[in-house]
């Protein structure tokens, strides 16, 4: 799967550009490139449902982020953080990287998932009996909406809470402004 290497390297380069460029709008658009590349990678990994959801979510994230950055002054960031904090961060990143590579030794090889190694893995039940149990031809949707429907309910709760929090944070500003204009 050489195409996956190409896509991953494109994602890494896009992320570095997004983090290092001075212009905030350019940074946001670079992250959009990374997300859409991620969606293409999902397509090559035989996950069409996730690719579709990733495209939709990516567009919404771009809209939200551009709303945050446009019309605001590009705040001039002078220099980096102090040297000691920078050095500690780099050492921390290095240590996490080493430990992560160690962990990959214990994982099954790429292309041999758990379901191929253990025949009694739960996913094997979903694949072999999903059509008979739930009547859904798409096994992913039968897992989301039938076998693990409570997870989806929890997801909806988390999403609702997060959106409610965002609305509450943004609304207190509007109320304060109303009061100020009322005083004038």
């Amino acid at each position: 799967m050489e195409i996956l290497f190409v896509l991953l390297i494109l994602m890494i380069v896009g992320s570095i550009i997004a983090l290092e460029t001075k212009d905030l709008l350019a940074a946001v658009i670079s992250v959009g490139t990374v997300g859409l590349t991620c969606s293409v990678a999902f397509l090559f990994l035989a996950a069409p449902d996730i690719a579709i959801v990733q495209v939709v979510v990516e567009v919404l994230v771009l809209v939200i982020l551009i709303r945050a950055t446009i019309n605001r002054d590009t705040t001039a960031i002078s220099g980096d953080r102090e040297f000691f904090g920078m050095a500690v961060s780099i050492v921390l990143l290095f240590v996490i990287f080493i430990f992560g590579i160690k962990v990959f030794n214990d994982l099954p090889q790429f292309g041999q998932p758990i379901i191929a190694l253990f025949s009694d893995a739960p996913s094997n039940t979903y694949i072999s009996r999903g059509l008979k149990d739930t009547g859904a031809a798409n096994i992913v949707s039968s897992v989301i909406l039938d076998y693990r429907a409570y997870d989806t309910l929890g997801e909806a709760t988390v999403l609702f809470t997060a959106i409610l929090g965002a609305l509450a944070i943004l609304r207190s500003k509007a109320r304060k402004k109303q009061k100020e204009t009322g005083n004038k």
Partner: protein
Amino acid sequence: MIYTLCLVLFMVGLYGVLVKKNIIKIVLGLIIMEYAVNLFLIFLGYRIGGVAPIITRGADLVEFTKNSVDPLPQALVLTSIVISLGVIALMVALCIRLYERYGTFDITEMRRLKG
């Protein structure tokens, strides 16, 4: 090898969160970390030459069971992607409020946040 590249992508995001001073850059770092984790979970469920977990009309079910990729990571990553949208909206709302309060995105200038 491909897992290592995924870890490098995660590290780039973590670098942004740890080192950058602009708060929008920190949010972008978190988004990049989310992409890396989602992609890694899908990698774990991939089978070389596997087919998407969708049963087509007239397909042989035994053959499909041998060839399909793992549907469980896909279902849970689907949940994770949608939740990340809500979290990003919350973070950006906080950023907008901080900008209106302090007039800057620079986190080292937000000293009055203490107390």
